[in-house]
């Protein structure tokens, strides 16, 4: 039994040794060969590492760009921001319009800046009044950068004393009587833009009738309940809001008069801005828009006008001094004759 076992062990050992020998014969690698294999393996690992790292680094910019575009395109965030910006200008900047098709948007990494030119109608022609640049980080805007080309620009952040259009029951800012003198001293061959503050609240149509056909009403300042106090409930000055009086023939203007009157478009814009009040407040000069209260007031009392921007030949504008409806004026821009 023990002998048998010894034989088996010997046989096993011989087979094992044979196998080891065979393995060593077929798989023997000299030291040089082994070094070559290790070096090759090392090089392959380094090359793979470098290439994959390079690929990952190069993917950063495209992936961020794509994510940014997806962020702004899905749900129309960018278009909504552009729309709100454009419409805020129409209703908070007297006699100012913009070319909606000329609004440029530049998208960076999770940010967007939009730039557009604004225009003023003085006489019969539109003049470039300046340009706006608004930077959006995600969908929240920073304060716009305004570059105005006007001789008499409005105050960047309005206060009670710097308001150009004043409610009949609010106190008249000091130094308004000198404004008629400006008109009197202007040459006859010029056209001007004048901001009228009225003695009473009137309907938009009534105002146009009372001012005559020799001057053109450009913009109507609407009474929304806050203009008398000129501040909101927290004491922040409330800026003027209103809408263009004339139909804008530009195809893409919201006030193109095709489906709705300017007054209806104005109410729609206020509703849109109410939903985006934070954005609108940043873009508007006035730092308090109090839109929900103003909309409620307008629905209750209807649209009544307390001020307007008119344009026309200077001799015709001078005649407004005798108009009983006008309490005080502020002269805006003056240009060479273009009244055809």
């Amino acid at each position: 039994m023990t002998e048998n076992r010894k034989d088996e062990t010997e046989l096993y050992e011989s087979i094992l040794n044979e196998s080891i020998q065979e393995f060593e014969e077929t798989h023997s690698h000299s030291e040089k060969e082994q070094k070559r294999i290790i070096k090759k393996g090392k090089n392959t690992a380094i090359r793979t590492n470098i290439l994959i790292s390079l690929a990952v680094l190069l993917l950063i910019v495209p992936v961020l760009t794509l994510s940014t575009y997806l962020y702004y395109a899905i749900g129309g965030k960018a278009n909504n921001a552009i729309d709100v910006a454009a419409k805020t200008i129409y209703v908070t900047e007297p006699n100012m319009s913009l070319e909606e098709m000329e609004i440029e948007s530049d998208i960076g990494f999770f940010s967007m800046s939009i730039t557009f030119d604004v225009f003023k109608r003085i006489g019969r022609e539109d003049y470039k009044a300046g340009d706006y640049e608004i930077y959006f980080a995600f969908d929240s805007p920073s304060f716009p950068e305004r570059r105005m080309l006007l001789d008499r620009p409005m105050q960047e952040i309005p206060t009670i004393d710097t308001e150009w259009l004043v409610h009949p029951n609010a106190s008249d800012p000091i130094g308004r009587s000198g404004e008629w003198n400006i008109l009197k001293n202007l040459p006859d061959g010029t056209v001007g833009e004048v901001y009228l503050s009225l003695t009473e609240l009137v309907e938009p149509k009534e105002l146009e009738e009372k001012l005559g056909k020799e001057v053109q009403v450009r913009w109507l300042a609407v009474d929304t309940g806050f203009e008398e106090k000129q501040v909101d409930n927290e004491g922040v000055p409330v800026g003027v809001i209103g809408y263009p009086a004339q139909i804008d023939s530009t195809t893409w203007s919201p006030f193109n008069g095709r489906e709705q009157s300017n007054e209806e478009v104005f109410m729609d814009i206020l509703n849109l801005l109410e939903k985006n009040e934070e954005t609108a407040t940043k873009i508007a000069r006035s730092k308090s828009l109090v839109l929900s209260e103003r909309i409620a007031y307008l629905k209750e009392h209807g649209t009544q006008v307390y001020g307007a921007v008119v344009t026309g030949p200077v001799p015709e504008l001078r005649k407004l001094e005798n108009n009983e409806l006008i309490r005080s004026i502020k002269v805006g821009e003056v240009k060479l004759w273009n009244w055809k």
Partner: protein
Amino acid sequence: MELEITKKRSGITTIIGLLSFLVALVALASLNIGLLLDSDEFPDFFLVRLPMIGLALGVVGLFTKKNSRLYAFWGIGLCLFILLFTFMMFGLAWMINPKP
């Protein structure tokens, strides 16, 4: 046995796989340059044709031994990403601030 294979690793298909990866990297680098330059007119060659070439090379590179398909997979992945990126950007750019 395993070590035997390493001697024969660098077959033609593996090189094609590596080539696909390199082509994809060149296209990706060009895409980066285009995006950082913020240029509207970037040659189509880098955005469409080069990734197509990389994709074709990557597919050929797949017909190789199991252990060396890594580069081909990366090549195919990156080229597909660039093509997808190009087409998606066309669509998305059109959706943001559309002008007739």
